[in-house]
């Protein structure tokens, strides 16, 4: 439902008593309210929905997710997986993870 797009905070200022920011989306600049992410700093990324920043994007968490996914890619490469079909090696030692 909720279209929220990640962008970079490039400026923080106050408007009518509210903490606001200019958010950069690949060069398009849009205004968003930062009241719900009071600790956000310039240079950090946030997801903005209907003009409100709702969460600070955590680069460490993102990196951990990617590390897990890259490991999957590496494992697949090691076992010679057919990218669109079943793996060539036995799948038994894969299904029990997590």
């Amino acid at each position, binding site marked *: *439902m*909720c*279209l929220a*797009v990640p*962008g970079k905070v490039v400026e923080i200022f106050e408007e009518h008593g509210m903490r606001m920011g*200019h958010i*950069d*989306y*690949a*060069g*398009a*600049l*849009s*205004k*968003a309210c930062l009241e719900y992410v009071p600790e956000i700093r310039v240079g950090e990324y946030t997801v*903005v*929905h*209907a*003009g409100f920043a709702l969460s600070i994007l955590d680069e460490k968490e993102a990196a951990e997710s990617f590390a897990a996914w890259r490991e999957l890619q590496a494992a697949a490469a090691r076992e010679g997986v057919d990218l669109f079909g079943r793996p060539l090696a036995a799948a038994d030692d894969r299904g029990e993870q997590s």
Partner: protein
Amino acid sequence: MKDFKPENFSCPRPATDSETVQLAHGGGSRLAAELIEQVLVPGFNDPVLSRLEDQATLDCSLAAGERLAFTTDSFVVDPLFFPGGSIGELAVNGTINDLAMGGATPLYLSLALIIEEGFPLSELQRVLQAVAGAARSAGVRVVTGDTKVVGRGACDKIFINTSGIGRVPAGLALSAAYLRPGDKIIVSGTIGDHGMAIMSCREGLSFVEPLASDTAALHELSAVILAAAGGAGESGRAEVPGGPGGASEGALGAGAAPAAPAPGESPPEPGPVRAMRDPTRGGVAAVLSEMAKASRVGVSIEEDKLPVAGPVRGACEILGMDPLFVANEGKLLAVVAPETAEAVLAAMRDHPLGRQAVIIGEVQRENPGLVTLCTALGGRRLIDLPAGEQLPRIC
């Protein structure tokens, strides 16, 4: 100037904002005459226009086989002025482009204005300067015009109509119905620029700075395309076996095709450039869809080939809009025979308006009448046209 009373009319460079267009400016009055002579005509510096006859009588002799192209378009954009241009540039470039898409060299334009009572003269001046400037840049003459003023509320500030005449070289015919399986589809540059520029000017959409429109006259680029395709390959005839019609062969020069047939005749073989279109309202999706239907072929495009400028992409993401459906005013789509595609692409990239030209897809037999998008992931999605103008969404 006899009977000129300063209090009745302002200098073409009005000193104050309170100088506005009045109903009297549109009638056959002295005020109207002064408006035309002092505000409209000087910017164009055209000998035919300056005669201010009821019609423009023009030298337009055609060599054997050449034909006239004639088109009209009206412009009602709001806001009138935006980064990258204004209604003035749109009115000139839009009509030039309609001519250019048919392979015509644009020659003459008419300019008809419908102005709302109360419209500031200073803004009218700006619009006219934009029209004159765009026409000058394009090397096209505005030779005749008309001005009407309507009561407040009867139109929205200013509406412009331009009609254009151009000359089509002998033997050249382009048509959306000429696409054939195997043809390549080329776009001249980034898509969605104009529509997102207008959207970003809208109040209430939280943009800090508006994006820039891409309005441009494409007649030089279209000529480059036709020349490059004509030079490639032998006679420039389509090589696809079993093409439509019995096909007259050989009599025509490179780059040429038989003219569109009269009703009852079998259709000619298309030349190496099948069709060109500028994807205005409805964007690239609308034009590809029209061409697929007209030619009864399928069109397949690749998502990761579509060129989209960073800020346009960002703007589309936050508004939930798809650049495929967003208007362009300075881009064209060219469908060309496959053996000419690389030559055409190279020639386009040599031209300032085609630096980012890229092949985005091809024509196919499957799914006739439909446009298929191959997603970056390897999925396929049929592109259907939205019911109305694409609106921003938050869901």
